């Protein structure tokens, strides 16, 4: 069906404040009397706090408050599992854990004061490696994790946070059927989400005694709940005000420093701002989990996968607090099954406590790790079977009626179309342009998120429309998408639909942003609200005997009777139709045999999507995720030495630059079967996960070096080549 506005390449008219510098992020919020909070962090990975002396810090001119754990209630916080103190009490568990916090009018004075706090530590044995952490007799990071609120019951070792399992069929029986079995182990690195806005927040208590919060947090209502618990205040005493968020990529859903800011407000009576330095983000943010993943696959004579077992160890660091899923694990583990029909499957994922930085969610949590392992494994098996990697995949791709690892039954499966389109667009079967050049492919799929969102649509007396929502703008263009949906339904222009950003006072709840959810939940809420308003408008028009297009006239007529034409809709999607979105990607790389340096010569990404609402924003999501995947594949890594982060700036941890991006071909297979408005699906997490394995497979194709641990640095390729050729 032809749309007027849906599918049209409308520019980012939602971002005029962003290009003009007027957009007010949480770090830009200013309220009269504002002061600054700065944290002192632990220099040791595991130690008992014997003594803290803050007298010299308190004495520094300009210092308004210094707080340690003994000044705070014994509250543990978290997003799902509540195991993290506001400030370390008795014991520190990672380098970078907060042990004290200072308030001063001048941020540099506050920072200076933190250096005047004397802390006496008694070292405790630290455990850094996740495999060592779950060995018998290893140091225990938490004495009794089972006692924490939200802690999963199953705990094979005190350092295990959670065990996540996916089962299909009978895996032992499956392996007995197999003609050959293959087992490979892979590792992925510690990596930051890379948002350029460090966590920032402003907290104040207004004249009515209510706590006002501005924070870089994408789930305002969940934040209000978590704050209510952390601050021991009823929810109605807290208001979260929405601000634009300077990059989320999964990382902006926690409390971070907000409870400390509140306690500083409480003791100083002044509004408090806390902004993390980027060095603090790198030592104490909530980065992507490093992983150790072993896959074992049984294959029949004709190259059909009959069984697979997967064991994933996620190094979760010192606290589970940053993981939001009820499983206290990473859903991406289910990608151990790849995009393949595997009758007998067992996936087990263990999140493990160590004395490292606590990890959290990052764009498609757990998937880039698991898809790297799984899709590299697929190519290695194809090689052993002397099958073309594409052909091996063809023989095992999911089809209609198949089940995912989580038991989800699938329809509209376009795995095969997506793969073939990628192969064609990338000239996969054409001769390679030269030596040391290789091509590699990888596939993945991503579900469409669920959740619940409120929307209020109001017809103004000037004939324009206001859409009231409480979804923060994380940059994806969701606000523009929602305006397009409302404009389409009501037959007005996008410019005639304005967003009125609500606060947590204005709705009962909302699941917020994340998990490839917003176009679906926000879009449907806006869509149904707009449909209701349209019906009202038509009724009013009939009453007045004017055409339904005479919006201003209709609104004014209602206004004269003291009525506003306003409707609301609460959309709650607990699940949706059995559709997912497939991705197939092909990398063409050149390897420099003298240095091992990998250059991506061209990259092809193919996506099976629903109705595209805004092609510019849709393509932007693909390109952004893809380059994050490229960084994860080739250069991004937070390095540690005995638990201490040794790369504490973006001069050392490198993110891809404008000179590091490859020529890109994008193929979109549009198939309007999604649960979103106008049958949209999701795109935000579709392009990141397959990049690393596509490149790893291309590197192996180019030079025979198989890199099993990310990132694929020139050095790893160089020494792999050297070993392979027995060079001395």
């Amino acid at each position, binding site marked *: 069906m032809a749309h007027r506005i849906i599918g049209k390449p409308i520019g980012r008219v939602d971002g005029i404040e962003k290009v003009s510098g007027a957009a007010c992020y949480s770090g830009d919020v200013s309220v009269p009397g504002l002061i600054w909070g700065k944290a002192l962090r632990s*220099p040791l990975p595991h130690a008992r706090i014997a003594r803290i002396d803050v007298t010299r810090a308190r004495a520094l001119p300009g210092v308004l408050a210094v707080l340690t754990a003994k000044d705070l209630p014994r509250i543990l916080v978290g997003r799902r599992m509540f195991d993290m103190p506001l400030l370390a009490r008795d014991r520190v568990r990672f380098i970078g854990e907060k042990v004290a916090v200072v308030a001063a009018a001048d941020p540099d004075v506050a920072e200076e004061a*933190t250096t005047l706090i004397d802390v006496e530590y008694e*070292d405790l044995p630290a455990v850094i490696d996740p495999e060592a952490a779950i060995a018998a007799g290893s140091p225990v990071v938490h004495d009794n994790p089972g006692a924490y609120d939200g802690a999963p019951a199953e705990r094979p070792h005190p350092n295990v946070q959670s065990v996540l399992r996916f089962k299909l069929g009978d895996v032992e029986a499956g392996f007995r059927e197999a003609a050959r079995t293959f087992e490979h182990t892979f590792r992925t690195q510690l990596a930051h989400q890379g948002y350029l806005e460090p966590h920032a927040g402003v907290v104040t208590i207004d004249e009515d005694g209510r706590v006002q919060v501005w924070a870089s947090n994408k789930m305002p209502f969940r934040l209000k709940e978590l704050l209510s618990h952390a601050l021991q205040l009823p929810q109605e005493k807290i208001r979260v005000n929405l601000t634009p968020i300077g990059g989320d990529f999964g990382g902006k859903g926690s409390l971070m420093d907000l409870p400390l800011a509140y306690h500083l407000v409480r003791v100083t009576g002044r509004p408090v701002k806390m902004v993390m330095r980027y060095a603090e983000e790198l030592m104490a943010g909530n980065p992507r989990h490093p992983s150790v993943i072993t896959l074992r696959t049984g294959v029949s004579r004709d190259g059909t996968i009959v069984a697979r077992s997967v064991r994933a160890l996620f190094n979760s660091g010192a606290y589970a607090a940053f993981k939001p899923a009820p499983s206290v694990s990473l859903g991406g583990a289910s990608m151990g099954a790849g995009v393949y029909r595997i009758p007998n499957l067992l996936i087990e994922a263990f999140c493990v406590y160590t004395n490292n930085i606590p990890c959290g969610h990052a764009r498609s949590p757990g998937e880039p790790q698991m898809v790297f392992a799984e899709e590299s494994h697929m190519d290695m098996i194809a090689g052993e079977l002397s099958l073309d990697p594409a052909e091996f995949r063809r023989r095992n791709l999911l089809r209609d009626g198949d089940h995912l690892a989580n038991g989800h039954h699938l329809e509209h499966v376009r795995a095969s179309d997506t793969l073939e389109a990628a192969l064609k667009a990338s000239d996969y079967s054409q001769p390679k342009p030269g030596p040391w050049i290789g091509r590699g492919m990888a596939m993945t799929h991503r579900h469409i998120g669920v959740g619940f969102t409120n929307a209020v649509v109001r017809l103004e007396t000037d004939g324009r429309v206001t859409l009231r929502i409480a979804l923060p703008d994380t940059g994806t263009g969701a606000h523009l998408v929602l305006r397009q949906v409302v404009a389409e339904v009501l037959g007005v222009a996008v410019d005639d639909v304005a967003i009125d950003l609500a606060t947590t006072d204005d709705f009962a709840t909302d699941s917020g942003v994340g998990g490839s959810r917003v176009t679906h939940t926000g879009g449907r809420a806006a869509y149904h609200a707009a449909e209701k308003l349209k019906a009202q408008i038509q009724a009013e028009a009939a009453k007045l005997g004017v055409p339904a297009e005479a919006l201003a006239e209709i609104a004014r007529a209602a206004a004269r009777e003291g009525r506003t034409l306003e409707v609301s809709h609460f959309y709650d999607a607990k699940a949706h139709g059995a559709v997912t979105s497939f991705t197939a990607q092909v990398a063409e790389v050149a390897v420099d045999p003298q240095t091992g340096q990998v250059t991506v010569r061209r990259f092809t990404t193919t996506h099976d999507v629903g109705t595209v609402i805004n092609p510019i924003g849709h393509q932007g999501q693909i390109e952004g995720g893809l380059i994050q995947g490229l960084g994860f594949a080739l250069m991004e890594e937070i390095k540690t*030495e005995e638990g201490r982060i040794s790369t504490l700036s973006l001069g050392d941890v490198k993110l891809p630059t404008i000179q590091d991006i490859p020529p890109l071909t994008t193929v979109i297979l549009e198939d309007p079967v999604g649960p979103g408005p106008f049958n949209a699906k999701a795109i935000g997490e579709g392009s990141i996960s397959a990049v690393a394995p596509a490149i790893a497979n291309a590197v192996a194709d180019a030079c025979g070096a198989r890199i099993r641990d990310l990132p694929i640095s020139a050095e790893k390729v160089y020494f792999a080549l050297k070993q392979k050729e027995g060079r001395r």
Partner: protein
Amino acid sequence: MTFTQERVIPVERERLWDFLMEVPKVASCVPGVEAVEAVDESAYRGSLRVQVGPIRLSLQGTVAVEEQDRASWRARMRAEANDRRVGGGIRARMSLTLAPGEGGTRLRVETDLAVLGRIGEFGQAVIKKKADALLEEFAHNLGSKLHQGG
């Protein structure tokens, strides 16, 4: 980080041992050490000025002799020191052993060093190089001092 360093000091083992067991004397051979005073018979307080890369550190701390085993020519020491201004410090466990070496006594120092806070930001490789340079100078000073019959 753990590392082992060895130097031959051109004096006989007994003299070197007796000298090494007197912390203030030894300290006078460590470049940058200032104002060493005894806290008790086995522990001492002092300060060490050392430059690591661009930063001039003034480390205030203590050294404690944890074990003296003349029979096996082995001693263990523990040092802790902090620099307030820069915000960081070091924790070191050192094991010294003396063995006969060509032209003198072979001093073997095994160190388990933890570098805390901002000082660590330069990475272990740099710290290790600095430690090597320190021991080099220390051994040299030790040699000359003992020859003056210190």
